């Protein structure tokens, strides 16, 4: 029964993953990887910023980009964070332009300022060309963008994500939730034991 539930969950995760044909950088690493990390994050959450900057970027470079695991970013904007949903919409739109990483980095780097001012657009614009800004505004209006975020939130809720950041590390069909900020050294030591040679 538990195995069946895990298989269903895994299927839901694969279905909800950003589409491969959109050259998305929200997901990195081979789809067939034996280890999968589903990261549920909120651009306005301070702990998510720390995890992104200290751990996730290195996990992406050292593990996902080297084909050792698959890392998928899911938006999980918390209701108490006033501008988190707007930030998630703009980042998802930027992903369609192939600029997700740049926008996500900028949003986390300048989190403190836009969390207070609410001026998310200015931060996003700072890493885009004038033409990209125009395109991004159009893409952001696409209802599919918001629907994708809602799907992420629903998936997180189904996976019992109660706070951000939460990483669900799935290995051998078994999901292991890792909640909060973890240092790269500790996390990579664990990952090295499960990704194999």
């Amino acid at each position, binding site marked *: 029964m538990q195995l069946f539930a895990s298989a269903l969950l895994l299927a839901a995760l694969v279905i909800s993953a950003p589409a491969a044909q959109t050259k998305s950088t929200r997901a990195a690493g081979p789809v067939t990887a034996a280890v999968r990390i589903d990261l549920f994050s909120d651009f306005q*959450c301070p*702990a998510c910023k720390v995890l992104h900057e200290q751990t996730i970027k290195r996990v992406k470079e050292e593990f996902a980009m080297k084909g050792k695991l698959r890392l998928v970013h899911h938006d999980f904007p918390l209701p108490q964070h006033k501008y988190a949903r707007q930030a998630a919409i703009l980042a998802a739109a930027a992903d369609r332009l192939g600029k997700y990483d740049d926008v996500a980095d900028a949003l986390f780097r300048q989190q403190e300022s836009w969390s207070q001012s609410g001026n998310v657009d200015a931060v996003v614009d700072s890493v885009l060309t004038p033409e990209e800004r125009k395109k991004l505004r159009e893409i952001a209006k696409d209802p599919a963008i918001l629907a994708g975020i809602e799907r992420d939130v629903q998936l997180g809720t189904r996976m*019992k994500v*109660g*706070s*951000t950041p939460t990483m669900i590390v799935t290995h051998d069909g078994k999901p*292991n*939730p*890792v*909640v*909060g*900020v*973890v*240092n790269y*050294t*500790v*996390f990579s*030591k*664990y990952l090295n*034991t*499960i990704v194999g040679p």
Partner: protein
Amino acid sequence: MIRRVTLALRLLLGAVFIYAAYTKLRQSWLLFALSIDSYQLLPEWAVFGLARTLPALELALGVLLVAGVWLRYLSIAAAAILALFFSVMVVSYFRGAGIDCGCFGLGEPLSAKTLFRDGVLLAAAVVLVAYTRHRSNP
């Protein structure tokens, strides 16, 4: 009466420590290290050291409490460990750290419920200390 309460408390605490150890020992010790690390209170060497030793310590303490040996000292040890856990959890909870409790394996967020549960266990351990002292000093 005191004898019955002492028996009930040491069996309860012993079972809790054994179960806590079991949930940690059945998974990779590195997953427990991740739970400890998420508290962001210890350096890496201490995180690894604690993750390797704490489950065994909990198991030994649980078994000895159930066996009822060296009760006077073990009840103090149990109360001290629970007081330490409780303080760390309270600090992290009020710091707003959305983390895993790490108490009984993965997947249990630190919450008012986990604080209440650990508080009750701590109170039980303190009562056990008081009762075992009472028995030792008639």
